[in-house]
């Protein structure tokens, strides 16, 4: 039985994304987990949402909520999706786990007319302190795993990501920064934000 998930219970970055997706649009959620965001988009914004998720247990949970989710790997299975087949492609907390995040991002901007990307900021001051003073790989709220079992194989900072977007000519239509569950300013975000959400567009005028 699908129960509507109120936006307030969504993870903070998903809440921001949900708030900025246009009503009635078509959305592909890459790395959709158990479908919490998709369910919220469907129930509250009449969105036609499709998901891609690597973990079979999560797929089963999402399908159990009545969502259309395909088990697959963002690194491999995005190439099967036609160009511009969605209004938005969403990649939340998945970029840093991809084997080829640059290619995943290319696909995202190809498949979606716009893309939301959220990721944990590896330049947050707690992370910096952990390395600087502790001399150890950081284990924080956003990055809870130890170095040997972390799925986060491509750590990225907000400034890294901005430089990457500039270099690729990707247009930033929006950016939101989170410290804990609260939004924080874009000033000094690279130091103060634990988490970033970007709204991107591929080609100018598209």
């Amino acid at each position, binding site marked *: 039985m699908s129960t509507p998930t109120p936006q307030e219970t969504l993870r903070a970055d998903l809440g921001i994304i949900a708030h900025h997706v246009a009503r009635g649009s078509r959305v592909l959620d890459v790395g959709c987990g158990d479908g919490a965001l998709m369910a919220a988009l469907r129930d509250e914004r009449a969105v036609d949402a499709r998901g891609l998720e690597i973990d079979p247990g999560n*797929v089963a949970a999402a399908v159990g909520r009545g969502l259309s989710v395909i088990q697959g790997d963002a690194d491999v299975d995005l190439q099967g999706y036609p160009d511009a087949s969605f209004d938005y492609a969403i990649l939340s907390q998945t970029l840093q786990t991809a084997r080829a995040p640059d290619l995943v991002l290319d696909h995202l901007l190809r498949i979606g007319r716009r893309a939301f990307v959220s990721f944990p900021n590896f330049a947050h001051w707690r992370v910096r302190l952990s390395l600087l003073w502790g001399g150890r790989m950081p284990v924080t709220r956003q990055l809870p795993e130890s170095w040997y079992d972390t799925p986060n194989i491509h750590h990225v900072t907000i400034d890294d990501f901005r430089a990457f977007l500039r270099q690729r000519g990707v247009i930033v239509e929006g950016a939101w920064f989170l410290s804990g569950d609260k939004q924080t300013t874009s000033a000094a975000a690279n130091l103060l934000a634990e988490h970033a959400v970007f709204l991107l567009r591929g080609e100018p005028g598209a």
Partner: protein
Amino acid sequence: MLDTIDPDRTTDARFGLARRVTLPGPLRLDGGVLLSPVDIAYETYGTLNADASNAVLICHALTGDQHVASTHPRTGKPGWWTRMVGEGRPIDPARHFIVCANVLGSCMGSSGPATINPATGRAWAMGFPVITIRDMVRAQAMLLDHLGIDVLQAVVGGSMGGMQALSWPATFPDRVRACVVIASTARHTAQNIAFHEVGRQAVMADPNWRGGDYHDESAPTAGLAVARMAAHITYLSEAGLTEKFGRRLQARDAKSFGFDADFQVESYLRHQGLAFTDRFDANSYLYITRAMDYFDLAEEHGGLLANAFRATRARFCLVSFDTDWLYPTAESRSIVQALNAAGAPVSFVELSSPYGHDAFLLEAPELNRVVDGFLRAGA
């Protein structure tokens, strides 16, 4: 299209267990033959609701039958899919009107090589026209017309049942709202055809086969048993066989240095082969394996699988099993890609099981969870 239905549906003779109907047809087969009349043996469970919107059609596999959740009349065994169909199960007679029909060409009461050809008064045998998966689906549609069902809430099938389920929205785009395809494929590969050909040749090499004309004599049970043994291996996984039998010997301490069933796996296969011949007709095995080998849904739609799904608005759910090497996950994935290209809502999951292709018939809580969630979402 709706027939007049008895308001008290429980007394309607069309509904219930062990039903059989002779429909005038004719049914135009893919091979060009007009089949008339068409016998269909079927069962229904549950109650058709007032607007006939709760019908779920279950399609059975190669050697399956209409007894999806009732005792098999010949073997006395429970229905073949009681894990999926029944009280509290994902397909539940308390909510759904469940229809399961013996496929065209089979031997449990529907028209096939073992039924009587009205023109000759004798069994059709090899005079029965060659049929396709789509012919089976068209026969099912005739049955639904007879039952007063215009649109299916869902069509569900595993293995060859999945081929029929997939053919349903391709053949009748407006008559099905949801489609569940488990451990199946959109076409038979060279390897699939090859295994079936081994089975058919085993049947035909049996001197009792007599060109299919054995109905007054002994049936070609030895050949059919070998066909079943070969096929049965493809339904299991190497790991599953190793776990179940290993190299263990059958009721003996040492090898016999002969050709008895020394190994447990040999004894098991021989038993499976023999038991099969008690309940299945050799010619039906030829006809149904042929229908599966001819199956290529893309070919029926200009060579592009996505074209098969452009006209339908049905939702799809596909499930594969990681140890199924008969219809491996890659086959399901290519169907998913075609559905995506056609813009159809589709869910897909590869589940883990040690049991190979047969996993869809066994206890699989994740499978039930996926099918249950998928069906409820559209209700």
